[in-house]
């Protein structure tokens, strides 16, 4: 079975879906689900294979290489899986929209190009697929019209700016080593000067950092992810920004190599330590900005930025625990951010487009499955035991504490605290509390939405209880980079300072739950009340006005809001406005008066003649 099958199926399937949609929408829907699930199956075939083939040389005779190794496989299975679940979710979400052919085409194309990115073995095809992913994502972000258009424009300009740096980096590597193929570059760069390595690293960090929404480059993410159609927001937050993390892993450990990367820097300020600090700022600031948001999708979008910080810390720290934590957190965040976006999308679908947290409430009885989904997702992102988020966060905390990075650990803990506050706000404002009058007729989420939600929740819980399954693969990735192997068993990781064994945790919690249940059965009687029956100190409670979710965390918000003004965004806007003014002035060169134009010609001639004499008189 060749690797090219994956790409051909992915790209061919997307175009076929578009054309099928011209005939019949039902056939197209079925085919879209089929092809995205087929991709998942095809990727699993390549588990534990290391293949590298030259699949195309029509591009100026440059060899294009497709390769799969454990790292690629891990990312590919996440991409394919999330793609399939989002498409399944879109079946009902997009039912009443127009232009759905275009939507499915672009969703599948984004999926296909992301697969292409992780499967590329040479930098040219990497860049090609990266750009295809960027512009297809741009088309779909702008799909919703209205404020989405400005959001899409911000996204694509920043993405194109990032690609500049990547292209410069790729060509600098080519100019020095004469090849685009990744393993060959890795072999050649071992003998490079540290100045050159620093330059290459900075080029690629800017490029991948923009895509990954690391702190100074994050401003495109909140508008883009909140205005995109919601199943696509799940893909965007879940995987697309993680392509930046894949890029980081590629450039840090595959191309530059662990020893050179970790050895870079002067004295106390090693390069990867600075990166960890960037990660720490990325955790703290966006997480608290998220807490102040009133739009559910903006809250989730700001959180995506924050969680990227954990991944950056994990990857840059340079210990095997940290690397495992970072990669596992990538996987977990993909799962639970997709889950959260899908549940918010379900609520948005049933309430006809309402995302404003100040007006929702009390939907727990109306949409129970969705509530389970958002609860599992929230617990996972906070990092409560029994969810996989706990394992990855535990790994990161452990490595930070073990190696004595106290400030970074403090930043990580603050991040968790902020996450807890914001997700309580999300869950409470959407599902708990009182049900406003206008949402009395909200129905349950349709089946095609419930299935992906349940699948994702199940996977989160499964990997929370048995984290050994993904950890085994992650450990292989870590050893392939040259880190020492972790002692992984099915229930967790054993290390010198203490074992994480989630099966024991499960056992303890299960026993505790059974004991509590027995107490409740034997003890006090409880009385069933309706949802509207709230305590009103003896007076009757009006249903509509008593909704205490508006201006959640108001005192705290007022306290920290002045510190959280997004100065980076203001800076970028200032640059953009300045550039536009400059361009406006430049075009005034063409005054419209033909005498001026003729003078330009003669001046140019005079300049040429004088310059040529000047050159030779020097």
């Amino acid at each position, binding site marked *: 079975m060749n690797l090219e099958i994956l790409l051909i199926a992915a790209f061919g399937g997307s175009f076929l879906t578009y054309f099928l949609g011209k005939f019949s929408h039902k056939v197209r829907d079925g085919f879209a689900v089929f092809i995205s699930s087929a991709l998942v199956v095809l990727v699993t075939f390549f588990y534990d294979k290391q293949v590298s083939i030259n699949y195309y040389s029509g591009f100026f005779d440059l060899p294009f290489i497709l390769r799969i190794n454990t790292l690629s496989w891990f990312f590919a299975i996440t991409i394919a899986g999330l793609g399939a679940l989002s498409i399944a979710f879109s079946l009902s979400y997009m039912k009443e929209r127009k232009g759905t052919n275009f939507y499915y085409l672009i969703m599948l194309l984004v999926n296909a190009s992301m697969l292409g990115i992780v499967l590329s073995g040479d930098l040219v095809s990497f860049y090609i697929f990266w750009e295809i992913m960027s512009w297809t994502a741009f088309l779909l972000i702008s799909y919703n019209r209205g404020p989405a258009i400005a959001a899409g424009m911000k996204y694509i300009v920043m993405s194109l700016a990032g690609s500049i740096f990547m292209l410069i980096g790729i060509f600098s590597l080519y100019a020095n080593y004469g090849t685009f193929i990744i393993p060959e570059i890795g072999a050649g760069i071992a003998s490079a000067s540290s100045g050159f390595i620093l330059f290459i690293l900075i080029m690629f960090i800017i490029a991948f950092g923009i895509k990954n929404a690391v702190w100074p480059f994050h401003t495109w993410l909140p508008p883009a992810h909140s205005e995109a159609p919601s199943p696509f927001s799940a893909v965007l937050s879940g995987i697309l920004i993680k392509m930046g993390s894949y890029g980081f892993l590629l450039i840090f450990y595959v191309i530059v190599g662990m020893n050179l990367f970790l050895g870079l820097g002067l004295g106390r300020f090693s390069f990867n330590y600075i990166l960890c600090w960037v990660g720490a700022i990325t955790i703290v600031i966006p997480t608290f900005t998220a807490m102040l948001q009133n739009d559910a999708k903006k809250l989730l979008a700001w959180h995506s930025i924050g969680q990227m910080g954990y991944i950056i810390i994990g990857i840059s720290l340079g210990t095997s625990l940290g690397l495992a934590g970072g990669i596992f957190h990538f996987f977990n965040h993909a799962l639970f951010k997709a889950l959260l976006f899908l549940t918010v999308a379900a609520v948005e679908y049933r309430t006809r487009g309402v995302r404003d947290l100040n007006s929702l409430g009390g939907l727990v009885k109306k949409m129970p499955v969705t509530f389970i989904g958002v609860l599992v997702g929230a617990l996972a992102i906070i990092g409560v035991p029994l969810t996989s988020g706990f394992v990855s966060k535990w790994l990161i905390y452990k490595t930070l504490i073990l190696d004595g990075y106290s400030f970074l650990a403090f930043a990580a803990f603050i991040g968790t605290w902020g996450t807890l506050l914001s997700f309580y706000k999300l869950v409470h404002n959407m599902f708990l509390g009182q049900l406003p009058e206008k949402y009395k007729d909200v129905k349950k989420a349709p089946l095609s939405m419930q299935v992906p939600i349940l699948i994702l929740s199940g996977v989160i819980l499964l990997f929370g209880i048995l984290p050994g399954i993904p950890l085994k693969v992650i450990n292989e990735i870590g050893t392939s980079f040259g880190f020492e192997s972790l002692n992984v068993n099915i229930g967790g990781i054993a290390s010198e300072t203490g074992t994480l064994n989630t099966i024991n945790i499960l056992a303890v919690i299960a026993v505790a739950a059974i004991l509590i249940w027995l107490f409740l059965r034997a003890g006090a009687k409880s009385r069933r009340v309706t949802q509207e029956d709230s305590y009103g100190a003896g007076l009757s409670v009006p249903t509509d006005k008593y909704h205490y979710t508006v201006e959640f965390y108001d005192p705290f918000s007022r306290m920290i809001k002045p510190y959280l003004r997004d100065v980076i965004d203001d800076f970028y806007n200032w640059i953009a406005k300045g550039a536009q003014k400059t361009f406006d002035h430049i075009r005034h060169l063409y005054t419209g008066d033909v*005498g001026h134009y003729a003078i330009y010609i003669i001046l140019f001639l005079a300049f040429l003649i004088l310059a040529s004499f000047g050159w030779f008189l020097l």
Partner: protein
Amino acid sequence: MIYYIGAFGLVFIGLYIMLTKRNLIKVLIGLNILDTGVNLFLISIGYVGKGTAPIFSRGSEQVLMVDPVPQALVLTAIVIGVAVLALALSLAIMLHKHYGTLNLRKVKEQRW
């Protein structure tokens, strides 16, 4: 030598008119002068001192002749200049019909 000075003098006069005058007809006259100057320059390149017309006839093989190639070039160049001038004048008429003026400083709708 003097022919070169004359030719370039005409070229500079023509260029000066084209760059500074406002009336379209004056600019076109300047264009014509520029073309004339260039043609004169081309002919002067082919000048051989004391040469006669470059025409073969019986008994003229030993006589000094001027270079015929620039004369051919100039014929072509004159024709091109005439064609451009004719086109320009017809465009000038249409311009006057639209704008009512031949002042090039006022014909500035296409700008920036």
